[in-house]
Each structure stands twice: as C-alpha cells, then as structure tokens.
C-alpha cells in the first residue's frame, strides 16, 4: 500500500496497526521528493539525516505507548523556510540569509517535534514571504504540481506544492495576507490560517508582525485540525499569543452545519473573479445550502480599501523587521572597509526587488510628515474593516467566498507588482481583522483547482474548520490528487 498522497489520519492509523513504520513513510516521502522535486522545486533544504533520527525515535515512541503518541508521531512534515529549526539552514527564500543556521527552534516547530514529527526539509517560498506566486524566491521558483508551467501561488508555494505533489501529507506555512490560503487554493489542498494570536510566532522570521500567522497545509480539513491542535496555544515567548484556552477542533468537526447561518459577502463576488472560479464557488454555496445551512448576503463595505491599507501596514512593519539584516551578526555579508558601504552592498545584493520595494514603501509611509497620512490612517481603516467583519458576524456564523479570484496562472504572467498584489484581495482583509480562514478545494476550472474560503470570527477557529469539514465530506473534492501523485501510484 502506498502512502504517497495519503492523509495524516491514514498514516497515523497505519502506524498503529502495524501497516507501516515511520521509516517506511520517510522512505516513501524521500522517493517522491527525488522523483518529482526537480520539476516542482518545493524543497530548498532537505533534512534527511535529521528525519532518519526522528523516524527512529518516533518508532520507539509508537512501540512503547501507541495510545499516548500524537497522531503526528512518525508522520513526515515539511516546514516553510521562514520557520527556525535549530542547526538547519534557514533562508526565508533570501540571499541575505545564506549561511544562517538558527541556534534555536521556534515554538510551533518545537511542538511538532514534541509530538514526534519527522521533518523532511525546509520549503521554498517568496523572499521573506513577500509574494503570491513563489517567483520571488531568490533560489528558484516553485511550479504547480497540477501544471508545471503555472505558479503554485505564494508565498508558501513550496509548502503547498509539497503536499499537492504527495511529498508529505502535511506541511507548515505562514499567512500574512493570504500566503497559506491562496497557494492552497491554487494547488488543490486545504490550507488553514488560524486566528492571529492562536499560534506562537516565536521562531517565525517576521514579515509583518501584526499580520503573520503560522498554519498547516494538508489534504483534508481533519488533518489541518490535527496539526492545529498540536501547534496552537499560548506561548510565554510570544506576548501576542492569546492566553485563552484552545477549543478542541476535532469535537467541532463532527457537529455538521445544519441550521448554521452562512454569510456571502457581496463585495467578494466582484468583477475580478474569473468565471470558472465564480461557477465553482456558487456551486459550493448551493451544496452548503443543501446541507441545511442558510445563506445570507452580507456587506463588508470597506473591502475595497483593504488592499491599500494592507500595503501600508505590512510594508511599514517589514521596513522595520528587515533592518536587522545588516551583514554584521549572521547571514550574508559583502565585505567593505567602510561600514556604510558594507551595509549598502550587503542589503543591495542580499535583498530582491520585491523586498526592496516594500522596504521603501514602508519607510516612506512611516517617515516624519507622512505618518498621519499613511500609517495612522491605515490603522484607522484597519479598525473599520475589523468592525465590519464583527458586525457581519452578529448576523451570520461564518462567511463563505472564493479564496483567490483566479486559478493558478502561468509563471512570469504577472510582472507588474499591482497585478500580483490583487491575488490576495480576497484573503488579506482576513489578516487585517485577525480572523481564522480556511481554504479548501471546491472544484476545478480549466483543469485547475479552485479554492473555497471559510472565514469565522476571532477565536472561532473550530467553527471555520467545522464548516469546511462538512462541505468537504459532502463533496469529496479532497480526494482529488495532482497528476504527480497519480504518477507515483501508477
């Protein structure tokens, strides 16, 4: 039996009934990476030796006390290369971090390790998670497992593609404006961005601190819920992580959605939506209705201002967060006798064009004399956007809409930054409001996956997963696999 393209839940069951061992799962994962990753480019740094040790350790744990072991014990995982793992190169997709081996492990990753995870490597991404196609990786672009001439979305394109191509049953990504949900949609997998403050950001290389959040990719909502359970919860090392107790999502998954009120945000079905995407999402809405949910049109009037708000706040924070890359203490340095020239050369050659663009945008927005007009105003609009969501959630339990206005587009198709920014127009308002959001497959358009987005109120992560799970179970889109998985099985 092959586990390539399989789920976490299936692996966990087989690890317990003796159907497979952690080493065998690892061997399969490695074989699939070696078979397809030359084409996909998902894995930047494989960690096979580490994975071997972890698999052996997981084997011991499963043998000693299979009941106590986490469902993630012995299951392979890949980590977006913005997540620190002690001793393993971490580049954030940037040249400027070449040679950086973090001396510490971040909290979410540590929680996976504690659960017995087997880390197979670090995945490719847009430089410092800035981008929506993974073409901004300083190393190589990632290609979509459904069509290698197309992008996988971004910025967590490597993590999405690694799951879609069957290299690992799940992976971790990060989402600042849609960087989990949009690539999940474009790669035909499930991606979950938890409520801001649910998962510790300690050990996540910051892009925009008030928006960044870690979350999983997997083939099913249930798998995402399993991973979420393992990584969520307060962390004393992250003051922005919530001290409130985490609701058990597995319990919620079983509840179904009969009687739930689902909101359809009018502004999310505008002109930019591709016809194929609109068709698939509208069909999904009918399915949800058929399952006993009531649909209500709601309005989020400031949606149109979200993009410009985001592109002030996120660059402002990034301009400050990226100041530490000065060539002095870690990563790459372009030597020069004069300190200023060393800074200029290091940052000039270490950062790519998009990163520089955002540093400049953010520096400008925070500059004396411009702060009120840009940053302060953007913060006010951000508050309004959050209030509009909160008002909508007084009427409905969750919102449903498309994740991405388009399906996966060809590489190099969006060289104009603005057109690239529009990829996230349906996802970034969720980050501005700090809400949980899931993207899950809801059909195909022109042979490419379409994603349905479910958005819930803050800290109602379980509710977002519950709606998504119900839809998934009713439709079976989660059983479709990219051609790369089918080829492996053949």
């Amino acid at each position: 039996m092959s586990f390539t393209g399989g789920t976490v839940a299936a692996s966990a069951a087989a690890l317990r009934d003796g159907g497979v061992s952690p080493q065998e799962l690892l061997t399969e994962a490695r074989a699939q990476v070696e078979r397809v990753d030359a084409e996909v480019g998902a894995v930047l740094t494989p960690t096979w030796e580490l994975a071997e040790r972890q698999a052996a350790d997981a084997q011991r744990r499963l043998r000693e006390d299979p009941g106590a072991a986490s469902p993630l014990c012995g299951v392979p995982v890949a980590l977006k290369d913005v997540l620190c793992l002690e001793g393993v190169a971490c580049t954030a997709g940037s040249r400027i971090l070449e040679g950086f081996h973090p001396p510490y492990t971040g909290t979410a990753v540590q929680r996976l390790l504690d659960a017995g995870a087997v880390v197979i490597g670090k995945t490719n991404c847009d430089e410092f998670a800035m981008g929506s196609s993974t073409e901004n990786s300083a190393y190589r672009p990632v290609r979509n497992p459904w069509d290698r001439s197309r992008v996988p979305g971004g910025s967590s394109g490597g993590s999405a593609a690694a799951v879609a191509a069957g290299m690992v049953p799940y992976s971790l990504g990060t989402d600042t404006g849609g960087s989990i949900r949009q690539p999940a949609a474009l790669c035909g997998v499930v991606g979950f961005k938890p409520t801001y403050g649910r998962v510790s950001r300690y050990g996540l290389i910051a892009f925009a601190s008030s928006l960044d959040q870690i979350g999983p990719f997997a083939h099913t909502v249930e798998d995402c819920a399993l991973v979420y359970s393992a990584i969520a919860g307060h962390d004393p090392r992250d003051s922005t992580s919530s001290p409130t107790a985490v609701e058990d999502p597995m319990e919620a998954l079983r509840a179904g959605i009969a009687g739930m009120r689902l909101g359809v945000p009018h502004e999310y079905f505008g002109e930019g939506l591709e016809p194929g995407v609109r068709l698939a999402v509208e069909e999904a809405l009918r399915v949800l209705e058929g399952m006993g949910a009531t649909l209500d049109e709601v309005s989020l009037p400031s949606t149109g201002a979200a993009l410009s708000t985001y592109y002030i706040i996120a660059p402002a924070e990034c301009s400050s967060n990226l100041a530490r890359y000065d060539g002095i203490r870690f990563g790459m340095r372009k030597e020069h006798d004069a300190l200023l020239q060393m800074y200029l050369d290091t940052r000039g050659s270490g950062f790519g064009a998009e990163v520089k663009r955002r540093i400049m945008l953010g520096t400008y927005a925070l500059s004396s004399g411009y702060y009120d007009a840009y940053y302060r105003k953007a913060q006010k609009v951000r508050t309004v956007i959050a209030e509009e969501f909160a008002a909508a959630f007084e009427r409905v339990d969750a919102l449903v809409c498309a994740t991405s206005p388009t399906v996966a587009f060809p590489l190099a198709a969006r060289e104009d930054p603005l057109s690239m920014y529009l990829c996230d127009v349906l996802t970034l308002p969720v980050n501005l409001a700090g809400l949980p959001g899931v993207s899950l497959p809801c059909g195909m358009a022109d042979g490419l996956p379409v994603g349905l987005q479910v958005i819930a109120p803050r800290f109602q992560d379980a509710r977002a997963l519950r709606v998504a799970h119900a839809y998934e179970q009713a439709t079976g889109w989660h059983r479709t696999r990219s051609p790369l998985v089918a080829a492996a099985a053949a």
Partner: protein
Amino acid sequence: MSSTATHGTDTLRVGDREYQAVIGLEVHAQLLTRSKMFCGCSAAYVGAPPNSNTCPVCLGLPGTLPVINRQAVEYTVRTAVALNCEIPEFTKFDRKNYFYPDLPKGYQISQYDLPLSRQGWLQFHVDGEQRRCGVTRVHLEEDTGTMYHAGDVLQSATSSLVDCNRCGVPLMEIVGEPDLRTPEEAREYLIWLRRVLMYIGVNDGNLEQGSFRCDANVSIRPRGSDQLGVKVEIKNMNSFRAVHHALGYEIERQRQVLEQGGALLQETRGWVETQQATVSQRSKEYAHDYRYFPEPDLPPLQLEAALVERIRGELPELPDARAARLRRQHGLGDYDAGLLTATREEADTYESLVATGVGAKLAANWMLGEVARLANEHRLPLQQSGLGVVGLAALLRLLEAGTISGSVAKELLAELYRDGGDPAALVEQRGLGQVSDAGALSSLVDEAIAQGSKAVADFRAGKEAALQSLVGYVMKQTRGRADAQLVNRLLRERLGG
C-alpha cells in the same frame, strides 16, 4: 513648575542686553533588574566576557520576539511615583528605527507618544535654597550594545568590535523640563535625581560606567522672553563635573556667538574632556527620522491602579524628606543633613547610631569627619569595615561617657576600621581609659610649664594659640589619654590666664 526666576548668577550679558540660559536635562538610568528588558539574560554586563550574556532575543536573531520584564515596569512606576508623575492606565511600546552596529534589531524598543508616566517634578537644593524642576516624562526602553573601536570613533576606526552584553538592559529615560538656568542648578538637579534613584533602589548611580548618564539641551534668550532660543544638545558628559563644565562652556560659547553678531545653529555637540570644550557632532539637517511606530510584537500595557498604589505604598522616605526630618528631629544644619542623607545607607547608619544612644551632633561630626575620611582612604564603606555600625556606636559611647579621650577614639577608630575588634575590650586591655583626674594630671601640667618657657611667655604676652603646645605636651606624655579640656583648664589656672 520653575521657581528659579530671580537668581543673581543666572544673568548673562550680550552687549547691553541681559540674557539667560535655559537648560533641560535628559537622563538615562539603567534599572537594577536581574534580567534584561525583553529576555531572560542577566543584566549584569559589567565585567562579563564579551557577548556572554546574550541569547537569540537580545541578539535580534530572525524570528525572535520580546517579552516585557515586569520588574522593569515596576521599577519605572516606582521612579515615576517618586518623581510625582502622573501614571496613565494605558501605555505602550514603540519602535525607534535607526542603523547602528550596537543596535542588533535595527530599532530600539522605546516609548513614544504614550510613555509610562508624565508631568512630575523633582525638588532639589542649590546653596541651601530649595528649587523644583519639572519632569516631562519617565519612560522605559532598552539599552544598546557597547562598541570598541581600533581608532577614536566608528567613522575613522580601522575595525570595531561589538559587545552585546549590554543590549537589552532595561533603561529608563527621565526627561526634565527646561526649568534650569545655571550649570550649578543642572548639577544639583542631577545629584538629587541620582540620589532619589539610588534611594528607591532602581539604579546604582554609576556615571563612570554609564549606568546613569546625562545629555543636556541648552539655549540662551533675552531675559523676560518666553520664547526659547536655538537649542544645542550636549552629549558625552561622564561626571557631574563634566556636566557643570560643559554647560558653563556652552553657555559662554553661545553668548559670544551672539555678541559677535553671529547666529546659533541647532546641533548636537560633544563634550571633549581633554579640550574642555564642546565640539559639533551633527547639525539639524542630518537629524535622524526615527520613524516611530507602535511595537507590533508587544500588546499595550494596562497598569492597574492597584499596582500603582501598592508601589506608592512601598516607597521609602525620599532624601529630601529625610533631610528635613533629620534637621527637625536632631537639630542638624542644612549642610550636615544633606550630606548624611546623600545615600540611604549613610542615613540608615546615622539613624541607627543615634538610636543606640549616641548624641545626634556627635554622631554627625564623626560620620562626616573621621569615618568619611577612612571610608575614602580604604575605599570601603563603614558597613563593610572591620568596625561596622555597631562597633562605631560602641566607640562613640565610650567617648561620650568620658571613658576615652577624643584622640584615643580617633586612633582606635582608624585601627578598628581596618582590623576590627571590640572597642571596650581594647581600651581595657591597653589601658587607654581617659585620665580625667585633676590630681593625676597636675604633675604633668607642671612639667609642661617647666619645659615650655617660650610658650608660657608667649601665652602671657597674649598669644592664645601658644597654649596648644603645652596641652600637646601633656597629651603626648599620656599617649592621648588625658582629658584635653581638663588639661586646658588646669594650665590656665596655673598660668593665671
């Protein structure tokens, strides 16, 4: 807030116009917390091997996050309360962005528009006169690392080394109102501020090592004007003396520029000790734009009223109040009371001496005289000396009881300070008890007169001071044990003076 209006010495002359200097001080004081502001590393950086007190957080490694040190917040509240500040319920941290090799994150976590406290004041004294200076704000931030240049300054160094042990040490910034008018006032303000911080146990007051540092803003304006002149910021002052000299120099420099018809520049100047002059470092055109914005890694801080009230309740008696009480309770003069309350330890020592029954005046004289001299000579405070506070009290009681003479007490003090021991036992053992018996001293007094014919003649000719050499003879013969006053009286009786 200012009460410094009419003081004669603050007048400057520019041509035939009267001018006045306006000074505001910014003090940075490191907090005496065990750990750093945003991580668990030890804050004790002095003497630690370079970069040994560091971790991923204070090194600013990618992915790390700050966590607020609660003790640092409480110390800052304590300071704010001691400086009569308002403490809002809501405060937040901000990022101050600039590039420098000693700042690992490329920004300093500080406080911008919602500081932990504002609008307080500090009372201090200049030449026995009471003054008050407004405190604009007290806020909390993190210190930077330390740099060592192969060469004078970063710009001309062939290489520079960074030590991050100091990175993230909790730092309080205390911004004073421009209420000061003279270098003397500025110095006294600093002395009193440092005294308060040390009293409340939040800072060790070490200017040399930089745990207490000061920058000054100074300008001059026509007397009576309510406009401020062009402001110059002065840095690099590492002692009270340096502050005093630098301000004196700078005020005179500004006066001369105006007198010669020149215009002053808004700039930052550094005090150069070797030149005893301020030297221009940076003009306004090159001023930083720090791009302050709220620190997204730290949620705003809510300070409950109960916490502030608890801290207020725990505040010790402050130096100014304590000096006033010592004057009232023990009849001490201004000067003595000020010196005896210079540190909390000093004041505690004094009060415990008095509590054991030693006379208030006697205790003050000895503490400010011989004890201070010995402490200085041995570079060791009384509390850590062989004698200790209890020993000193025992010694002074022997003196007061007339058991030993003043000169014996002085001699014993020096010995016990160094070696320790029980004063009473030593007096007993060495037979140092004072000779206060007129009969016993009588023959020695006669001897003194017999051998000191010149002194006798001088004294009779009206030279009062000549008597001292005769007293000295008796003291010497008794190895200091004679009651000097009694000897004096006996001599006068004999000489009919």
